[in-house]
């Protein structure tokens, strides 16, 4: 048994060491596009501080417990001829002390937790930028009531400005989440939820629906662009302007096709159509991605999407309209011209 005991302990140690070494060798890249531990907003920072506080405490407890377990296993392994050990039933003062110790650790992490809960759920100031987020199967609509802008799947925000997101939706539960800007908040039908955050670093961020919402849950992504003041103002002006009139021949033809086909039933292009079931396309050409962030907005991708939406986004509600290749091409040219 001793041999086995030693072997078992050695193997356990080896596993732990191998794991540790593996981690060290490969390295963990933390500054990635959807990292939750590189906060770029004040909401994200507050959350992250608590996360780090709890992480250090739990890491300490983890090491103490696992080291204790290994030590006990090694120290008290069975040896040949060992007598029956002393039959100890417990030690009340010891047990009371570690119960209290655990409770104290919880106080240490509980108090800042509650502070941050209340801090992050305060009613936002009237000066906050209001953005209404509508989560739908499987794309995002972003409405800026103050700016009279409606767009989809790409959210633009000014840096340093507090934003109050009002979340609602008509179908199933979704969850609005931009990891680098902070935690998530569910979009619950028949309710209006709110999340408030202040982006602190300009840049491009990736968001994704975080509540399972049906077939294409994985394809319900979006982009967030945090601009400096000038960038934000120019974006707002661009969105408020009327959609550009197509100039080249192909795009002009594309506009005709759009206006005469089923597209108009679901999509709005200011001055052309007023459908509301699908994303507003008035400034489609100003977006970098399409189909809720799953493809880059290139002419080929727009064509591929129009030809068979459900192939790229299973369950997509947009039907294949059965257009001919040259029609699709014209349509793509038109849509991308809508800067």
């Amino acid at each position, binding site marked *: 048994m001793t041999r*086995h*005991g030693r072997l078992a302990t050695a193997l*356990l140690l080896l*596993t732990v060491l191998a*794991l540790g070494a593996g981690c060290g060798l490969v390295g*963990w890249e933390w500054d*990635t596009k959807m*990292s*939750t*531990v590189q906060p770029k907003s004040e909401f994200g920072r507050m959350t992250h501080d608590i996360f780090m506080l*709890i*992480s250090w405490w739990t890491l300490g407890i*983890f090491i103490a*417990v696992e080291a204790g*377990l290994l030590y*006990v*296993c090694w120290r*008290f*392994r*069975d040896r040949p001829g060992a007598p*029956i*050990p*002393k*039959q*100890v*039933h*417990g*030690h*009340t003062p010891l*047990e009371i002390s*570690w119960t209290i110790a*655990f*409770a104290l650790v*919880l106080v240490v*992490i*509980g108090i800042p*937790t509650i502070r941050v*809960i*209340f801090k992050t759920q305060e009613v936002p100031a009237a000066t906050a930028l209001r953005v209404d987020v509508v989560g739908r199967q499987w794309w995002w609509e972003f409405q800026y009531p103050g700016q009279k802008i409606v767009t989809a799947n790409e959210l633009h925000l000014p840096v340093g400005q507090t934003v109050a997101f009002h979340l609602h939706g*008509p179908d199933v*539960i979704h969850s609005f989440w931009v990891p680098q800007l902070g*935690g998530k*908040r*569910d979009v*619950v*039908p*028949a*309710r209006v*939820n709110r999340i408030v955050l202040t982006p602190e670093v300009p840049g491009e961020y990736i968001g*994704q629906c*975080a*509540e*399972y*919402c*049906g*077939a294409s849950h*994985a394809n319900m992504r979006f982009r967030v662009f945090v601009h400096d003041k000038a960038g934000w103002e120019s974006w707002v002006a661009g969105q408020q302007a009327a959609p550009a009139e197509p100039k080249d021949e192909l795009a002009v033809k594309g506009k005709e096709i759009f206006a005469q086909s089923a597209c108009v039933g679901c999509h709005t292009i200011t001055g052309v159509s007023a459908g509301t079931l699908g994303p507003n396309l008035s400034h489609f050409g100003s977006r970098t991605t399409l189909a809720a962030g*799953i493809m880059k907005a290139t002419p080929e991708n727009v064509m591929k999407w129009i030809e068979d939406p459900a192939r790229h986004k*299973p*369950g997509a509600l947009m039907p294949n309209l059965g257009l001919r290749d040259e029609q699709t091409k014209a349509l793509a040219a038109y849509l991308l011209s809508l800067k």
Partner: protein
Amino acid sequence: MATHAAFMPGGATKEAAATGVWSWITTVDHKRIGILYGVTAFIFFLMGGIEALIMRAQLARPDSDLVSAQTFNELFTMHGTTMVFLAIMPLSAAFFNYMIPLQIGARDVAFPRLNALSYWIFLSGGLFLNSSFLFGAAPDGGWFGYTTLTTRQFSPGHSIDFWMLGLQILGIASMLAGFNFIVTIVNMRAPGMTLMRMPVFIWMSLVVQFLVVLAFPAITVALILLMFDRFFGTLFYAAAAGADPLLWQHLFWIFGHPEVYILILPAMGIVSEVLPTFARKPLFGAPVVIYSGIMIGFFGFGVWSHHMFSVGMGPVADSVFSIATMLIAVPTGVKILNWISTLWGGTIRFTSALLFSLGFIAMFTMGGLSGVMHASPPVDLQQTDTYFVVAHFHYVLFGGSIFGLFSGFYYWWPKMTGRLLDERLGKLHFWLMMIGFNMTFFPQHYLGLIGMPRRIYTYAADLNWGFWNMVSTIGAFIIALSILVFIVNVFKTRRSGQVAGPDPWDARTLEWAIPSPPPVYNFASIPTVHGRDELWLQKHGDGHGGAPVPKPAPASAKDIAAIHMPPPSYWPILLALALTVMLSGLLISYYQVVLGGLLTLYCMFKFALEYHRPAQEAH
């Protein structure tokens, strides 16, 4: 307590000891039912595992198209539902069935036919749920089935119906078993076994049964409302009609969180038996371990909303549920220190059973600590619905429950079969599983922290998720290999394994005082109990100078012949079938519901009034 057989009029010992398929179908012997539960649940465990492997294969690389989105959604729904309801719960039930009567010195459970009924309803429910694959309508709404996604409007077709009705059927089985075990533990303990002398596995089992009978009604109500919505057009969950979709979430998690403790407490009970045996010391602070188990069960009902921190409940509710959740960490942490202290000063024998218990402590600690992280709502808002949470609960339910259950298998296998499992294969199984498990799930903490959401069938290549997903997938296949080693072990030792004898481990509790496998009547003479470690006291005394306590007087052949055991019955399986006919009728025709309902009533009537004349009166 020895007289309980007298409640059951008649029946002869040799009847219940018969062999053949029919004897298994009609058995009411708790040991056979335990084996049926174990074998069935293990097969479901393999199915859930295969579902997991397919998912892992799909996620090994970004933009992979091994399976479709729809298939992936079905896989994670069925994996979760299967592992919770068809694998871990019934694997625990296998031990409840087999071990509760043996550990409390009883000859069977309080209601042996009800016990059989539980099993057959469980089997029907499991088969019904999985039959959805054959009809191309596997459930795809997640194991949590959130409305409004699961209402008819957003999930037409029968997939959610299969899930909903399957869970209802399984719920009946769990409730019946819960009441049965409560009555058994409360009423049928051997003389002298006061509550505080009950083995800790029995205590944890008792707490679990109370959780089952109190938690399942919540999901039953939730499912009935959903059933009404889906079949009869009511509007309990129809947001468009003004309903609040969060109603479902509250009802589901009022069940769902106690369910977590239903899954982990049996493993805690097993570990509390295995550690003392192989350290050759009593459980350190057993009363505290017991009270902690009760506290965990009690608090378990007050923390459900920590699954809902992101739904927008407001700061007060967030704070209350956060603090309540953190409180649960106290009794849990206390238990871990008690287990380690049990080993302290012992002479530890590193058997496979003990290794799995050590694995339980090491891995469960990790799952518990990551749980403390998302007990804090701000942190949870980043972690919920990411792979961090997937890692967390697999450390609890795999690192905890599954390691604990395998510890139980290696520990009690000789009692159940009379033969020891091969220790070398057992250790190979343990180390493969330990390595595979950590390779699979440890990187998922990292993946969650760098933003990988749960329940996505695909992901983009530029997010740095590819490498560790690949590692995780390789780990999952190592786990599969370890399970294969276990299966080889079972088949290898079935005929040629070392014969165990009644007490191969020099163990401490009553089940080891009787032959392996035990006779139908378990105890030839019912023992009188002097302490929690009754068998140890009989063998070695209390270790503080007290003499060994007396063993029960051996029973004569005449005494044994006079033991009355409940006779077999085919009404449990017929009643379970009738019930399934009735409920599956909702998918086929209301006429079938009526027919099944009548059949169910008839079977219940026959079941209730079944009467066996004692053998001696039969002539």
